[in-house]
């Protein structure tokens, strides 16, 4: 992957982007048990696959979601966050 398509600015070199990991729903901090919270804080789905990830186009500070195959390094689509699904 050398070029990533920002939903606002179009295709840009990947060096302009910042990766912020997989999109993960946060459990309610006041209701979650210690184990659930530790699981959310530390554990990751490290296996390869198509993942929804947070990316940021840094010059314009545009946060968006990319669906990317982490084994082939191919981005399937990018779009703005639409709220919890």
């Amino acid at each position: 992957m050398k070029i990533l398509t920002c939903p606002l600015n179009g295709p840009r070199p990947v060096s302009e982007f910042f990766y912020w990991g997989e999109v993960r729903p946060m459990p309610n901090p006041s209701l979650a048990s210690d184990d659930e919270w530790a699981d959310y804080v530390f554990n990751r789905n490290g296996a390869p696959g198509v993942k929804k990830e947070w990316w940021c186009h840094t010059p314009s500070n545009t946060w968006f979601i990319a669906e990317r195959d982490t084994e082939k390094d191919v981005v399937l689509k990018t779009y703005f966050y639409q709220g919890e699904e």
Partner: protein
Amino acid sequence: MPWRLLRFALNKKHPEPRMFTFHEKLKSSYDVVIIGAGGHGLAAAYYLAKEHGITNVCVLEKGYIGGGNTGRNTTIIRSNYLTPEGVKFYDESVKLWQDLSTDFDLNLFYANRGHFTLAHTDSALRTMRWRAEVNKHYGVNSEVVGPEVVKEAAPMIDLSCAGHAPILGALYHAPGSVARHDAVAWGYGRGADQRGVEIHQQTEVLGIDVQAGKVKGVKTSRGYISTGKVLCAVAGSTPRILKMVDVKTPLYIHPLQAMVSEPIKPWLDPILVSGSLHVYISQSARGELVMGASLDPYELHGTRSTLDFVEGLSTHMLEMFPFLSGVKVMRQWAGMADMTPDFAPIMGKTPVEGFYLDSGWGTWGFKATPVCGKTMAHTLVNDTPHPLITGFSMDRFRNYALTGEKGAASVGH
């Protein structure tokens, strides 16, 4: 052509002993199955056979011996870590390294060079002092030195680093060494092989049979094996194996790239590391400059190389050593680093009985090869973690008791 060679060429049954025994078939069961024939897996097999007399062991490898991160690292060995757990552990490893060539009867080209971690800022220098004090407390030879010592050890260096990152001092670690990485896997492999361990290359693990929370066997591309103990030592492929046993960890995979230059005359004896410039460099016995930088910026389960990496690393390299501007890059490659949030490994037992983990070796696993093998063999035999690895258990995350090793990562990963 020598007669001996000609005789072999004409003879279909080569009587010359091979480095490793070829096994036609997998047995139906083993006492221990080790996944991954890299340095760590083979070292565990070696110590199981040598120190514990357990030889009904099978090492499974998807590719070839030492073809993963064992053959992709930049071969640096040191023990100047930050936490007491880390220092004690790596120091034991350095001691083991020093006798390995004799142990194996195989030349590992282990060369003691001395290791400088450069400080370009006051805060970096403060961390160096902290590391030096922790090291000295545990009897590890580390000290903070001034820029003049760096200049004396590497006269070609530009101490101002092109004017914008002047070197204020360094952490000097005299035991810092390099070794030939492939030979480490071969030495452990041959030693294990000679003692009866079976190494099966081109054999992929497809699944792990877990019943009532206990390991019962392993499904491979060449058939089913029953076993009660499995050691997973597969670096960047660890999350794939963990998925088979349904164990969750903080491990995430980023590629780590490296490159070597064309061979040039020997001019650099020590190993130099700069966290601020994201550079580490040493000169191999063949004269190539072995160079690395920091992790790639996003998750990827592949070993592709990028031009960005070569450009970035070369830029910083020239700030330190302007005279290298005419030297060509010969090749580059990448490995998949299994990273943890606290930059310490995840070793020992797991919630699945009989499934042991030697992982989270990210960008710092090569130097730990001997001690990992030794401590994991102990852990497998006794079913309790070796005292040196209790700080690296996977429970530490659930208990919010991390082993913060970040200050000692050679480059600011």
